[in-house]
């Protein structure tokens, strides 16, 4: 009597061979599916990018008079010289990535796409842009050229004194 009950409950819990193998099969298919997704994700992400270097050589400082704003449209950066020194701003609007333009008659940087406005120091003044224009790391190279790293953002108002 007792033995019979035990056998039944064991049979309920025990994995039959058929069930075991079908679960094993489905499980390995699941693993293969995840692997396939990872495979495609890796394949679609290029390892080598043929994009311009983030470091820009802007030439000698004498090219930039005091109180001037120069747009380097190819690199998407501003090279600005003021009394305090030299600094560089990213010229790409923080809203949706359009190239902004310096408006000397208004003294502001304006985005042609959706009307955002920034001060000469990159401070957001108006428009849909969520953030100010970031300041970029600038330094003088050994042969006295101004260098800008487009991929390195620094806190605002850190002027490069020359």
């Amino acid at each position: 009597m007792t033995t019979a009950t035990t056998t039944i409950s064991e049979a309920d819990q025990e994995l039959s061979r058929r069930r075991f193998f079908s679960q094993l099969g489905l499980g390995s298919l699941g693993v293969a599916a995840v692997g396939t997704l990872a495979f495609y994700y890796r394949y679609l992400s290029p390892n080598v990018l043929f994009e311009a270097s983030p470091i820009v050589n802007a030439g000698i400082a004498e090219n930039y008079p005091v109180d001037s704003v120069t747009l380097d449209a190819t690199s998407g950066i501003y090279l600005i010289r003021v009394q305090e020194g030299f600094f560089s701003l990213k010229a790409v609007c923080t809203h949706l990535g359009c190239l902004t333009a310096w408006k000397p008659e208004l003294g502001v940087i304006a985005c042609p796409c959706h009307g955002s406005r920034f001060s000469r120091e990159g401070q957001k003044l108006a428009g849909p842009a969520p953030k100010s224009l970031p300041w970029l790391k600038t330094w003088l190279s050994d042969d006295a050229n101004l260098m800008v790293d487009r991929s390195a953002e620094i806190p605002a108002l850190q002027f490069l004194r020359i």
Partner: protein
Amino acid sequence: MANGIDTLIGKAEKTRVWRSIFRSGAGQSTLHRALAIQQNVFLHLFPTKVRRRMISLGATWYLGILTLGTFLLLLITGVLLMLYYHPSVPQAYADVKDLKYAVTSGLFLRNLHRWSAHAMVFLAFAHMFRVFYRGAYRPPREFNWVVGVVLLLFTLLLSYTGYLLPWDQLAFWAITVGSNISAAVPVVGNKFHFLLLGGNQVNANALLRFYVLHCAILPLTAVLFLVVHFWRIRKDGGLYVRKSEPHDQDEPKAASGAGEKQ
């Protein structure tokens, strides 16, 4: 004249070649007509019997068939444009200029493609407004509405990916702005942006990816959903015709008579 053609078709239907292609023969019985549908690879997915009213193009104010028409026009003109267009940075813009100024009828085909694309977006929206305000989305057609929303999405994605291909300033900035919108998706946004462009900026990889999406992946997937859309029309009881529509009230006999004639 018409009689002559009828006799000619009648004779052709009796030949061995005709019978090898259309096995069912040309009888007028219900069986013959059912077999004609069932034994045709293009039609066999559909029910063998359907009321004419249910698939009458006028039921969607012709907006459905017009959207399909523009889609077919886009397929044909698109394939023709592919024969002159290279999706590479040095060539893309020049190829579009070539199509405009140097290729015979190139300007016509390109403009046909462009205006059909605009028309298709407009017609798809108009079609959906008609379906919505007439209540044709209600059960049992609710799933076909969902398929229709997916098709609208594909229409817009096809428009968007095609936008980059001329590789001019408008294209470049439109895709820069549009792809930055996709980067705003929480968590995966930046990864998705990178995968979509194949890089960090709109460049050679982005042009090629948009080309493949525009010419292969998106149209093929859209055709798949189109097939489901047309199949569901018949499976869901045909196109929706509102009972209170004037022609239904005024001529109930004519309407049912049209159905029986099938």
